[in-house]
């Protein structure tokens, strides 16, 4: 075996691995969130100039179809523009694209509530609990939804589940107490 060739080959392999290590995993390469266009969207959102942000965000979405961040921006923009139907669609898209779908919660369900689609909203609240079962806020949201539907038993059970995860929440304790008394009095 030619020793020089062997050493050069091994060296090349090591250098290749080192370059790969130093170059990053490339997770941020699909969309440069710090490119001028992206920054203009984010700045406009921060300044609540949602109408300015929308066309740029839509243009970026066409260029980067699989980018969950753009769906997140669009949902935020539509919420700011009071367009709940578009907001729901954007959140759905975000949920499909992101590995952290819980970030769409409870906004997607809230937007459906705003549209008056309470049954779908309730489904979304339940779906949100499934996204992050350890998060008591999602259970509180679901409990609230059950309560709005006058399903006191379900609401109480859901609040109790939330209280197990967040035992130091006085508002939650008060709510459980009130509902328990309502249940006891047969209302």
């Amino acid at each position, binding site marked *: 075996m030619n020793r020089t060739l062997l050493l050069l080959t091994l*060296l090349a392999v090591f250098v290749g691995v080192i370059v790969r*290590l130093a170059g990053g995993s490339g*997770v941020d390469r699909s969309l440069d*969130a710090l490119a001028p266009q992206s920054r203009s969207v*984010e700045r406009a959102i921060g300044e609540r100039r949602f109408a300015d942000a929308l066309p740029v965000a839509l243009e970026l979405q066409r260029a980067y179809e699989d980018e969950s961040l753009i769906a997140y921006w669009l949902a935020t923009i539509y919420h700011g523009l009071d367009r709940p139907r578009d907001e729901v669609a954007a959140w759905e898209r975000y949920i499909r694209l992101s*590995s952290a779908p819980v970030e769409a919660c409870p906004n997607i369900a809230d937007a459906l509530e705003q549209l008056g689609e309470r049954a779908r909203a309730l489904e979304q609240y339940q779906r949100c609990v499934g996204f992050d079962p350890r998060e008591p806020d999602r259970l509180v949201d679901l409990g609230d939804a059950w309560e709005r539907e006058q399903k006191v038993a379900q609401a109480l059970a859901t609040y109790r589940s939330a209280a197990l995860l967040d035992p130091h929440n006085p508002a939650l304790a008060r709510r459980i107490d009130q509902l328990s008394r309502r249940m006891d009095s047969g209302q």
Partner: protein
Amino acid sequence: MTRSRHSAWAALRVFVAVFCWMTAAYAWVASSTFASLQFLKPRVFPWVGVFSDWHAFACWVWLAFAVGASWHDARRRDAAARLTIPLLIFCGAVTMWNTLDPVLPGLASGTQTILIGVLALLPILWLAVTDHVVAAPFLARQSFAVSEDTRRAFEDRLFLVAVTSALFTTALYAGLASVGLIGAFEPDLMTPGLASGLAWSLVDHLWVACAVFLAIAGIGRLAQGRFLLQYVLLFATLAMTFAVAFQRWAGDSIGMQGPASTLAACAFGVSVVGTWTGLRLRRFAEERAELGSALDVYFGPPGSGGLTAAGSLPIVATVGLAYACMAVAARADWDFVLLKSGVLAVWLTVFGVVYRLTSGRIRLPSWLIALVCLAPLVAQQTIRVDADQTRILAHYAVYNPSFRLAFGLLHYVPTTPSFDRFLRANTGLTQEVEPIDIDLVSGLSPLPKDPKPLIFLFIIDSLRPDYLGSYNPAVRFTPRLDAFASESVVFRNAFTRYGGTGLSVPAIWAGSAIVHKQYVQPFHPMNTLEKLLDANGYRQFVGLDSIMQELLVRSDRIDELDPGVATMDYQFCSTLGQLESKLAATNPSVPVFAYSLPQDVHMSRLPRTVETGPEYQSFHAPYATKVHAIDACFGRFIDFLKRRGLYERSLVVLTADHGEMLGEDGRFGHSYHLFPQVIQVPLIVHLPAALDRVASVDADAVSLTTDITPTIYAALGYSPVRANRLMGRSLVDADEHASRDRRREPVVIAASYGAMYAVLRHNGRRLYIADAIKGGDLAYERDYSGRWTEMAVSKGARTVNQFIIRQYLDEVTRIFRVPF
């Protein structure tokens, strides 16, 4: 020169070099605004201040040593003298200048100070050049592996040295890790965990060793028998290694960036390798040694090949060095700089010892070299480390610093480099920023009601909530603080806005998150607490520490606590004693405000040895002892207020500017990182009786240190307005809506001294940390018992959290009108 005279000369040269390195290090620390304000100015380490005070005098001693070390060269009649004489004139001029106008005490932060640090290395670089000029004929005489056979022999020996060094280092640190684990409660590091740690340690050490072997062998092949070329390439490679290590471990940690920082790193690397090789070359030249390769310049020619009793001494010394480095780093370190430097020194020493003990007689087949080199590479690239395994390895790295270094080198992946650059650009701003007006109440006018409450704001530097009985039932050493807490509101979910005093304290006074700059001057337009006190004619008893001197406008109303006491020597008991005297001498109708930032539990002030009683079991005893001492003094102060009938009309706030790492994952301190233990603080508020009866509070919702000033406004009867999301909000009289917002709004927390940001969400149950100093991120989840668990960071969570941080920084830029 005889051997003993050479040793004496070498000792002089080492002294000269060490003094230059210390001077440069001081300048580089001073070049960083935060490090200058938080470490040098308050004299966190007193000996550093002494070094600065006496530097001008010590410079004369250094000059004498430099003259002594160069005398021989100055008297030669060759090129060495032509270099040495100007050097001595230069050193003399610099010493004279430094005497007339001492440089170190007057250093200001900025690029110029970095360059002064580089200048401090000039004498060592000059001496190294002289050494090489003197040794040039010797170097020219040497030859390296002219034939293919000798080249292969060199490579075989080198390979053997590299692999043996890796095996020895793995075994050495595995042994030290086992010693460190004795008595430690580490369920992750039972036999399977240890085996996994040891296996990965072996893989990573072999990986590094093979890379070193290939680099040196590659240089050898490139040099093609030319000794000088091999020497130059090795020099450049080593100097670059030291430069990169300097930048990554020290420069990045204190925010040294840009071309000046790169120059400093290169100067450091070249000065270390230049001094090392210069001393060795001079000796070899005098001994007219015959070197087999340029590597011999660094580590010496091979010995006889057998391991004798005398030859085993360096091995024992290496073990001692490894242990000593770990012991020193455990006492005081900065982001593992000492620990990693110690490991690097051990790696080089082990390599050197093995190199000298190995003869060139052994021949190895090429296939074996290929196999051994590829094995760790394949293992590292193919074996997937899941979240559980990562946690176990992270725990193992706490006890095995060599593994920590190797693992960090090979498994570190900068996740989002562009985001890291964005964070760094928005952190530790050096450009001028004009102050803005921050007002919690528009048209602030004095309160009509009298008597006004007394206000006491005690910020215990680095106090952790889980060392107080009111937060942690296992604590048995804070009875007085617990009694005070029982008469107060204990905000159980409190966090600092900044993980370091430098920005945490100004943000508390501003009642708002502020621009990442130390400091916007004048600070008064942003100082909402000072405005409140001035508007209401409060007499102010204030500890004017190094930060408060930057924040407050001096006025007759301010009566200094702890006058003449260095900031780091502020002790709570002494401060409270003075405060009692001042209160006793003050007309009770005069509204009084008192503020202090006691340093009792600061890491640099903890005792080395303590009596460990049963009450301190499962706690960090040196820290717990100091908390215990604070407790007694604070209790006496509350008794004093009660005796004088002041307690019922007092607003007493006891909190901390940040928490502290007390050995979790081997980390101590708070300055350079954000972890749950660093950002959680105690917040106990005793409200005046009149307010306490009517106030509604949600003590379990997230509360921030920036909420303290708005709460004080509310306690005095104002209605503070939160004009933007950076500002704090009152924690009293909160309606259900405000409480819900506190529980659900994300909060961005920043480190004071570096580009590290955290997002706290879900009422403080989820924490995402972006580390732009090292690159990468972390996530934690807290259960209802308060225990934090590290979680894997999904891409989706990273995307959203980074968006939240960018939104926060955009808001800071907009509100503070930061020029970019």
